[in-house]
């Protein structure tokens, strides 16, 4: 009796386990077909299938396509965005490794799209090998988007990561810099100033340079 019940439970659990991804794929495909012109949906689906074959996260790609549809973007632009995103996800995954969280890969892709060099991602991974990089990467991309120069933002996040700053510390750092910028401070000065207040960051840490050279160029 116990064996029969166990066998039945195992069968049902296996069916559910294999059914979930299939349902998810079907749902993604249905969403795209419902919102995009047929040809565009087919092209986007093909691109997403190729991303899936590379074990890249696909939900953000579906999201980009649907965002384009709801913002009434052209088919060409939607396909270009999906293709570009796949490239960034691929770069991030290459650097962060196969064991990276999906969220880390997506955040890393965001940083790459913001103009952050992939070598910075590699150094961040080395500086914070066991803790997820999702929040530091989101903060890095946000700082760049707010006008903090790439080298300043990259170094600040690297120094904080080396000082074992927690996710909450990165969140506060971002918020304080944002407030300073809103109050009229220069983005670079606000970042340098606020980095001093991150718990664990010593005066010596503030002298730390990134092991890689980040080009001093205007943010994209």
């Amino acid at each position, binding site marked *: *009796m116990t064996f*029969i*019940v166990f066998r*039945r*439970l195992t069968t*049902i*659990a296996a069916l*559910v*386990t294999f059914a*979930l991804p299939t*349902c*998810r794929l079907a749902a993604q495909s249905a*969403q795209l077909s419902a*919102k995009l012109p047929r040809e565009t949906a087919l092209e986007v689906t093909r691109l997403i299938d190729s991303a899936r074959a590379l*074990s*890249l996260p696909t*939900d*953000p790609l579906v*999201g*980009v396509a*649907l*965002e*384009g549809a*709801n*913002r009434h*973007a052209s088919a060409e*632009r939607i396909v270009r*965005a999906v293709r*570009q*995103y796949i490239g960034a996800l691929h770069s991030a*995954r290459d650097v962060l490794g*196969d*064991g*990276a*969280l*999906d*969220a880390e*890969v*997506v*955040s890393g892709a*965001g*940083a790459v*799209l*913001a103009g952050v060099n992939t070598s910075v991602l590699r150094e961040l991974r080395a500086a914070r090998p066991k*803790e*997820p990089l*999702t*929040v530091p990467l*989101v*903060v890095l*991309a*946000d700082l*760049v*988007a707010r006008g903090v120069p790439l080298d300043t933002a990259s170094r600040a996040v690297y120094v904080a990561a080396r000082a074992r700053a927690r*996710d*909450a510390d990165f*969140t506060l750092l*971002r*918020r304080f810099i*944002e407030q300073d910028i809103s109050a009229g401070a220069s983005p670079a000065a606000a970042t340098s100033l606020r980095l001093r207040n991150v718990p664990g960051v010593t005066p010596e840490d503030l002298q730390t340079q990134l092991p890689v050279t980040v080009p001093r160029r205007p943010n994209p």
Partner: protein
Amino acid sequence: MSDPRGDPLARRAAEVLRREQTDERAIERVMAALRERANGDAPEDVDVDHVTPSVAEPAIPAAGRFSLTTWPALAAAAVIFAIGLGVGAAFLAPRETRAINADGATREAAPVSEAANAAGGQSQLVEFVLVAPRAARVSLVGEFNGWDASATPMRHAERGDGTWSVSVPLGAGRHVYAFVIDNSTWVPDPQAPLAPEQWYGERNSVVVVSGGPRS
């Protein structure tokens, strides 16, 4: 002896005996009751169901028959699967599971009863807040609702300070979102990190829910 077809005890006993797989002890007890009735020892209102309490449940349902016991098994499997996902996620990602927002004052995160989402991570209830005093309607759009402006309308606070809010369960990961004011104007969350990608020319915001699957 009266006609057995008119005797309720005999009628019920016959029904019991016709059932499949009645066990021997039950048959004996029914027959004993009938004998007592025939001898005039049993009262008229003998409760046959008490006389035959042990109608045997089939230990193994007949092949090809979808027995009632399948449903508890199905439910148990679902519960075990959900618990397994939760335990697995906790084991694989032994990190704090809370939503990390740009500003804790505006978006509190709390665990929700859903043990697992489709992605296998843990869901968190994340509150989104926007102050828009002049708006007639505000909705939340993001990857989690297919960027559909009609999917997640925000609720206007009764205190009348122009605050709009909505709580949404989000799985672990990085979620991109924006607000849509009066069905026409898309704005990022002024309190949250900006998403660097500007696929269609305008900025979105990011919220991170910790944990989640590895690639």
